[in-house]
Structures are given as structure tokens and as C-alpha cells.
């Protein structure tokens, strides 16, 4: 490169803008070429304060640990004991989040059921109703009650082990959904009572209730229809966790499912995913505070989701007061989503393994987020179920390892006092001290 111009004056180094980055510029060019915003699947990809910013302190002279492989560290959790005749008993506190048949293939839903059942936990339907293969392969199945009510019928409702009223999801608090026409196979169309091949919009609000007072009556109706037998969860996005948790409990929920912005979606606008909602780390403590203020902590269960990936995340969620977690994206990766073995096909789609998020287009090389029979055939639900079971077992073992190191004989005995934060942001959000200090940012006059 010429370092001087003809007169001998030096050039400055070409400098990329921190504001107009290559990524941003590609967004602008895409928008200019198409006239429509970018739609994609998954959760927030931006870096946000997260569980990675927390560390456990482990045992010391004042806290003694439990022996790995010898001393018991319980992992079971009961969800919905407050009002339901038949609460859900899970062996591990890691559940599978709601993902729709439609967004996922039938075999992928089957694999989620197989894996969850083998690991002793529950799986969840999604926006599209309950499929027989999913019900058949899930020992504990949570039925999502969504604004669209696609595929909603009382027979399936009565077959469910729990009902989850979905108010919002972390990827898009306040947003509905869209299943594009190319994924609407005959079977998906029939289940949703819509013509084949058209875009299916999922409503953002429930059609027959608005606000907390109505929600209480809706919960009453669902309980009456199911004879007060099964727990009723309320799922909210991480928007206003203190108030949403408070209102859900007052409306009579047995459990609150709280989903942070790293939680995935089948498809929505990228701008929505990246700019609406709060990080999972930021929403736990306000929700737990709401439970405690109402005297309902451990009576109404808190299920946390949004970017949970490992046993460390599970343990941190528990330490901050959650009763259980839910995984979605991580479960899909365990099944084989975004696997580098399909790299050449990801390249052909203009992406790379790990970054593929155009799940709504139905061309998933891994055969999971598709309704294309040829692509679907690549995915073996038995093998997928085995992989998911393995992954759930590993997460559980990891969480137990940490809990034992902290001297806890149940994951639920982990507590905020076991944690420190690496950053001031994480310390303020998690309400734990900054590592190496007795400083709780944002909390006046506190110390150990």
C-alpha cells in the first residue's frame, strides 16, 4: 500500500468505525436491497452481563464441602404443589422449554420427549398444539396455552401433565410469532386450521383476556376444565420481573416461568431479539424478591430460562433463587443443530455452523427446524433423544459438583452467599459482592 501521496505526505491508517461496523453496514445494505427487516431464529446474540460473570467461592475453613461420588447431592424438584392435585415431580431441575411442532419437525419433538423422559424431566409443547409422538414419548409433558391457540383443544389439555399459559417469551416480550409459508406443510396447516403455504401469524395477546384480573379468571377456567388436577404455570418474558411475578402469583399460578432475552424464538425480527427484554442474569433476583415478599418462595416455583448452557449456569440460577431452569437452544444444539459436520451446507446457505439462525426458512441442514421430508430424514429421533439425555445428565453432574464443593446436599440449598461477581454490572444485577471486595454495587451500606 502507498504510504505517501505524490507530494510525500503520509496517509493515515484506514480506520473502521466503531459505530458503522462491518456488521452494521451489512445490515444497512441488506435493508436497502430488500425493504424489509431481518427475521431470524434464536435469542439475543449481543454480549450481555450473564452467569459467566459470576463465580462460586467453594468451601473454605468456614464452609466444608461434600465428598464427590460419595455424599448425596439431591437434584429433584416438585413443581405445582400449591394448588394442583398432581404436582410435577422431576428428577432433575432442568426442563425442556416450549418449542412448536411446525417450527421443529415431528421427529425433533419426539427426540426432545425421549431425551427429557430418560433424564427424568419434562418437555413442553409449543405454538402449534400437541402431537401424538410428542405425548407418547414424554412422561411429563407441559401443554402451552398460547395467544394463537393453534391446535388448542380440551382433549389435549386434559392429556397434559401441566399447563403453561404463555404471556411472553424472552426473545420478544410483547411480540407474536410468524411461521412463514414455506414451513406450512399439510400436517402443520391442518393442526393450525389454516390454508397451506400462507404465513401464519401468532397473536401477541391472548384473545379472551387482558390484564391480571382476567388472568385469575382464566386460570380458574383452566383448573375447572382439568378438575384442579394439574399445575398451571405462567410464562413471562424478562420485562418487568418483579411485577410480572407478583401478578402471576396473585392470579393463582403454581409456577412462574421467566425467560430472559438470550432465550430463543423460532422466528422474529432481529431488532426485536436484540433490543427488547432484559438479560437472564438481571431478572432472577427481582422475581425471587417478589416471591419472597409474598411469602411464596419455594411454594410457587420459579423456572428460569434464557441462555442456560451448562451445569454452572444451572447452579448459578439455583443459587440466585430459581427452583428449576428450562433449556431450548441448548437442547437443539445437543440434538445436532448447527453441527459443523454440515458446514458445507451452511456455507451454501450463506452462513456457517454456529451462526445458522434462519430456522424459519425451513432449510435446516441438520433436519431439526424444518418440515422438508428429505431434510427431516437426516435426523434420527432415537439417537437425538440419547444425545439430549446425555447432555442433561452432564449438566446435572456439573451442577452437583459445584453444589458439593459449596457443601450443599441439594441444589436448592445453593444460595447467593455462595457467589461473587466478576463485574460491577453482574454484581449489581445478581446482588452479590464484587469479587475480592465487600461491595454490593447498587446496594447501599451493605457488607459481608
Amino acid at each position, binding site marked *: 500500500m502507498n504510504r505517501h501521496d505524490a507530494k510525500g505526505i503520509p496517509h493515515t491508517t484506514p480506520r473502521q468505525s466503531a459505530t458503522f461496523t462491518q456488521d452494521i453496514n451489512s445490515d444497512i445494505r441488506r435493508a436497502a436491497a*430488500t*425493504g*424489509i427487516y431481518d427475521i431470524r431464529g434464536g435469542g439475543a446474540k449481543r454480549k450481555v452481563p450473564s452467569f459467566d460473570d459470576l463465580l462460586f467461592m467453594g468451601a473454605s475453613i468456614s464452609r466444608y464441602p461434600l465428598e464427590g461420588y460419595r455424599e448425596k447431592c439431591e437434584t429433584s424438584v416438585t413443581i405445582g404443589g400449591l394448588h394442583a392435585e398432581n404436582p410435577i415431580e422431576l428428577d432433575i431441575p432442568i426442563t425442556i422449554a416450549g418449542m412448536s411442532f411446525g417450527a421443529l419437525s415431528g421427529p425433533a419433538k419426539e427426540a426432545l420427549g425421549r431425551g427429557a423422559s430418560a433424564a427424568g424431566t419434562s418437555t413442553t409443547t409449543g405454538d402449534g398444539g400437541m402431537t401424538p409422538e410428542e405425548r407418547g414419548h414424554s412422561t411429563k409433558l407441559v401443554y402451552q396455552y398460547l395467544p*394463537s*391457540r393453534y391446535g*388448542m*383443544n*380440551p382433549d389435549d*389439555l386434559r392429556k397434559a401433565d401441566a399447563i403453561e399459559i404463555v404471556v411472553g417469551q424472552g426473545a420478544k416480550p410483547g411480540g407474536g410469532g*410468524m411461521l*412463514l*409459508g414455506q414451513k406450512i406443510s399439510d400436517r402443520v396447516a391442518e393442526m*393450525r*386450521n*389454516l*390454508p397451506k403455504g*400462507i*404465513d401464519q*401469524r401468532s*397473536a401477541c395477546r391472548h*384473545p*379472551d*383476556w387482558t390484564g391480571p384480573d*382476567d388472568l385469575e*379468571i*382464566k386460570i*380458574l*377456567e383452566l383448573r*375447572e*376444565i*382439568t*378438575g*384442579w388436577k394439574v399445575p398451571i404455570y405462567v410464562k413471562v418474558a424478562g420485562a418487568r420481573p418483579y411485577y410480572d411475578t407478583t401478578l402471576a402469583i396473585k392470579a393463582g399460578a403454581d409456577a412462574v416461568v421467566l425467560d430472559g432475552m438470550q432465550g430463543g424464538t423460532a422466528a422474529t425480527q432481529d431488532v426485536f431479539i436484540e433490543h427488547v427484554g432484559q438479560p437472564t442474569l438481571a431478572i432472577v433476583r427481582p422475581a425471587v424478591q417478589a416471591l419472597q415478599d409474598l411469602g411464596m418462595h419455594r411454594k410457587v416455583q420459579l423456572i428460569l430460562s434464557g441462555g442456560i448452557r451448562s451445569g454452572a449456569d444451572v447452579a448459578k440460577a439455583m443459587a440466585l433463587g430459581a427452583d428449576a431452569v428450562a433449556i431450548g437452544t441448548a437442547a437443539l444444539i445437543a440434538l445436532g443443530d448447527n453441527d459443523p459436520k454440515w458446514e458445507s451446507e451452511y456455507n451454501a446457505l450463506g452462513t456457517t455452523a454456529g451462526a445458522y439462525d434462519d430456522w424459519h426458512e425451513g432449510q435446516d441442514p441438520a433436519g431439526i427446524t424444518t418440515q422438508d421430508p428429505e431434510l427431516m430424514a437426516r435426523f434420527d429421533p432415537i439417537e437425538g433423544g440419547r444425545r439430549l439425555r446425555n447432555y442433561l445428565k452432564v449438566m446435572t453432574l456439573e451442577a452437583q459438583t459445584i453444589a458439593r464443593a459449596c457443601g450443599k446436599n441439594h441444589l436448592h440449598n445453593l444460595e447467593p452467599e455462595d457467589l461473587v461477581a466478576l463485574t460491577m454490572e453482574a454484581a449489581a444485577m445478581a446482588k452479590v459482592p464484587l469479587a475480592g471486595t465487600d461491595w454490593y454495587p447498587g446496594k447501599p451500606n451493605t457488607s459481608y
Partner: protein
Amino acid sequence: MQTIDLTEIGLRETNKTLHAQSADTNQTAWEIVNPRGSHAIACGLDAPIEVTVKGSTGYYCAGMNQQATVNIHGSAGPGTGENIMSGKIVIEGDASQYLGATGHGGLIVVKGNASSRCGISMKGVNIVVQGSVGHMSAFMGQSGNLVVCGDAGDALGDSCYEARFFVRGTVKSLGADCEKKEMRPEHIEILKGLLDEAGIDANPSEFTRYGSARNLYNFDVDNAGAY
């Protein structure tokens, strides 16, 4: 005729008693007295029984109904007959908002008027209203028929799919992607059948049909102003 005093035995016992009726029950006629506007009365029924509620009801009466006939001798609260699958609901008075929301099948008849969002997201249910309906009726209606013998409020059939709307009076305004349609002989037949089934005496030829213009079925940026 079996009579249940709802105020005396409570909602849970009332619904439990009705839910206990099987397909071959010989106790097919039930009467509920003193409903006092309670919510969720006779919801989740699934037997060929006839239940008459003597008075007005709160939210979600006859919600998710299957097979049963539910008569409301009064007015009905919000979400009555929501997600009805089959059977019949007859409301002698007026119906509040979200009547028959997301209903998949069956018939709902209103002798009075129905409020806003009547038939919202309807998925196959037939609704016949002898009076008028409020705004945003049949919003996102997917399939089934909404018959209005009076007038319809603002934004009828907004963002609808394949549901059909028959209105005898005026329509204050049509919602996005809803348009006036030709009334062909097959539609007269459908409407005649619905009016007969509802027991309402009206001349089908006086009605106008509305339905989806199908312009918003697949996203097109040039339609962005309509969303």
C-alpha cells in the same frame, strides 16, 4: 330435569357433577339456578347433555364445550364459549366481548347483541347473532361463519383468513384485508342452513358476505402500511 343450585353447592361441585356425565347418561337435562354471574360455569363439558343456566353468567361460561347444549337465560360475560369444539350455546340476552374466541366448531346463537371481538381468531365455529356485533369482530378469523342480523362495528374481519361473515345491516368499517364478496347461491345455502339451525327467521338474500381479500397472506413489504 336435574336442578343444581350453584350458590348452594359452589362452582367446583357444579362443574364436577356435569363433567361426571358420560356419553350414555340418562340424565341429559340439567338446570343451574342462582348462577349470580359466576365465572367458568359449565366449562369443559363433553357429553350430549343440555344445561340451562337460569340467569346471567360471568366469564367463560361453556368454555371449550364439546357435544353439550348450554342455554343461558340471561346475558353472558366475556369469553363465553371460548374455544368451543362442538355442541351448541344459546344466549337469550346479550353477550360480552370475545364471544366464541378461537372456537373450533359447534354453534353459538345470541338472541341479543354481542360486544367487541365477537368470534376473535375463530377456527371453525359458527356464530349467529340476532342483534349487532361490536368492533374488531372476527379479528384474525381463520374459518367458520359469523352471521350478524343487525350491524357490525368498526374493523370487521381485520386480518382474517378463510372465515366468512354475513351481515344484514351496515358495517361501520372493514378491517385490514377484509372485503365485500359476491353472494353466490352456495353462500345463500350456507347462510340459510345457519339461520335455520339457529332458529332465527331472516331472509338470506338480505345479507352481504365479507371475507379475506387474501392480500396479506404472504408478507409483502409493499403492504407494510396495512399491518
